[in-house]
């Protein structure tokens, strides 16, 4: 037995190989879902593998209504484009992987999804100089150079032009009109909600906001349709040109979000 002590030594060192392989990278999804991978290393692996092809990198989160609404456009374009381009949906707004997995069970995402932890999301945002708003889309050419970027949701025409290799100026000509909209969510008699509403009106005007009370059935349905979270606390979510900020809880934060996205 003592002649073979090297075997248990090797087996012990194999433990993390099994642990990592069983737990990391690929997470099971439904058949309609594309691959779900996690971590910056996985994102970089995909980008390296895509070398030579244009890459559409869409930054999104499950709570971002415009992100979710434009996702089918990306999936359709990915099918039409086939192997000529690589589509990646980078989730950098959901702190928990479970949230994303639950979302995909009910809303399959056909393109490759990369989930990043909050810390990794910060590093990626720094790497690509991303604004604090979702959705955002970056187009990289075959050499990895950025050719176009969009803050906010875009049309199918914009995405098609962007991945077709059109120049940045040509892509910008497909730009849509920019409008401001604010969702204020909370109970009607809550003082914090009243303060948020006052700030929302001062920013977006009388027509530029929606007030939704989660205790009212119709409003809760509208929240679900707009992918607004039921947080248990009053909040406001600012959207400009289809790009939505994270939900904020105070008028000051709402004003700061508006200033940062202008």
């Amino acid at each position: 037995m003592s002649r073979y002590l090297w075997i248990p030594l090797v087996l012990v060192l194999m433990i993390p190989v099994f642990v990592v392989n069983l737990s990391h990278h690929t997470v099971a999804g439904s058949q309609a879902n594309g691959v779900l991978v996690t971590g910056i290393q996985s994102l970089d692996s995909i980008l390296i593998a895509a070398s030579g092809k244009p890459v559409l990198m869409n930054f999104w989160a499950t709570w971002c209504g415009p992100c979710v609404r434009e996702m089918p456009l990306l999936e359709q374009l990915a099918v039409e484009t086939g192997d000529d381009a690589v589509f990646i949906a980078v989730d950098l707004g959901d702190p928990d992987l479970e949230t994303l997995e639950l979302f995909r069970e009910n809303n399959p995402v056909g393109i490759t999804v990369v989930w990043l932890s909050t810390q990794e999301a910060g590093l990626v945002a720094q790497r690509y100089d991303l604004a604090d708003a979702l959705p955002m889309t970056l187009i990289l050419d075959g050499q990895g150079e950025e050719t176009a970027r969009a803050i906010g949701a875009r049309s199918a025409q914009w995405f098609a032009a962007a991945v077709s290799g059109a120049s940045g100026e040509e892509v910008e000509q497909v730009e849509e009109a920019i409008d401001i909209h604010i969702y204020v969510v909370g109970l009607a008699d809550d003082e914090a909600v009243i303060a948020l509403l006052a700030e929302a009106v001062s920013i977006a005007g009388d027509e530029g906001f929606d007030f939704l009370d989660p205790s009212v059935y119709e409003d809760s349905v509208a929240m679900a349709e707009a992918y607004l979270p039921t947080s248990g606390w009053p909040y406001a979510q600012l959207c400009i040109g289809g790009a939505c900020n994270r939900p904020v809880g105070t008028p000051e934060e709402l004003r700061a979000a508006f200033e940062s996205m202008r």
Partner: protein
Amino acid sequence: MHRNRLTRHSVLRKTVQFASLLATNLHLSGWVTGNIFTGASKVAMIPGLHCYSCPSSVLACPVGSLQSILAAPGFWGILASGRADALIVFAVVGFIATVGLVAGRFACGWLCPFGLLQDLLYKIPFPRMSFNDSLRPAKYVMLLLFVFGLPAFLRPVAGGAGDPWFCKVVCPAGTSLAGWPLVSTSDGAFQIGFLFWWKSAVAFVILLWAVTVERPFCKALCPLGAAWGVLGKVSVFQMHVSDACISCGKCGEVCPMGIEIYKNPGSAECIRCGRCEKVCPVDAISHSIRAKT
């Protein structure tokens, strides 16, 4: 007289080892800024185990380079297509093979920074332990499985990248000289997770082992030593034991690899440090740069 010879030889060897360490770590400011050196010299490799991500390293580790290339997405496909980013694997293998065919494990004894670290740790006064020779074959598994097999063939996502498994779960040089320094910076802190704690435990055990046993990592786990040991069987640099040998065993007492060279001059474990030559009372041990016939 032989003791003096051994002392002078030890001073010479330490000087060469420290010179190698210094030449590999010229980017000393990296320890302050926490940034990895990315200059042109990083394409060259050190004949030894030293992490590419060590903040001061200006050279690449051959073991890490090999795994990184093998783990590239679609490696076998791009190798078949003749792309340079895959063909470079032959340059890395060629480098390792050349060093081994010239001098076997000479680089382990004279140039490897992690070998030096183990030598220094063994100087700490501490109760000594014996080394179980049955652990030695593990390094061949490290080479074949962790450096070649797993990075080249294990793909968590079909078509995706593999992982440099030796670096990722074993290498104590990477953990101690790159992992620990880099996670201490704010940019690296996010990498603390299961693998970090695993590798820290492995590195801690090996470093502690090196205090009680001379060069345990070289003996049991080093894949580079495994490759050079095998190539050393046919290398230009060879050790020889003449008929004058009286089998006194003094060579075995000073051998950092714990071998008795008079029984097997061509041992794959020999790191060509030369201590046995200096301590031999009848000068029966010698080396040559051409195999004797």
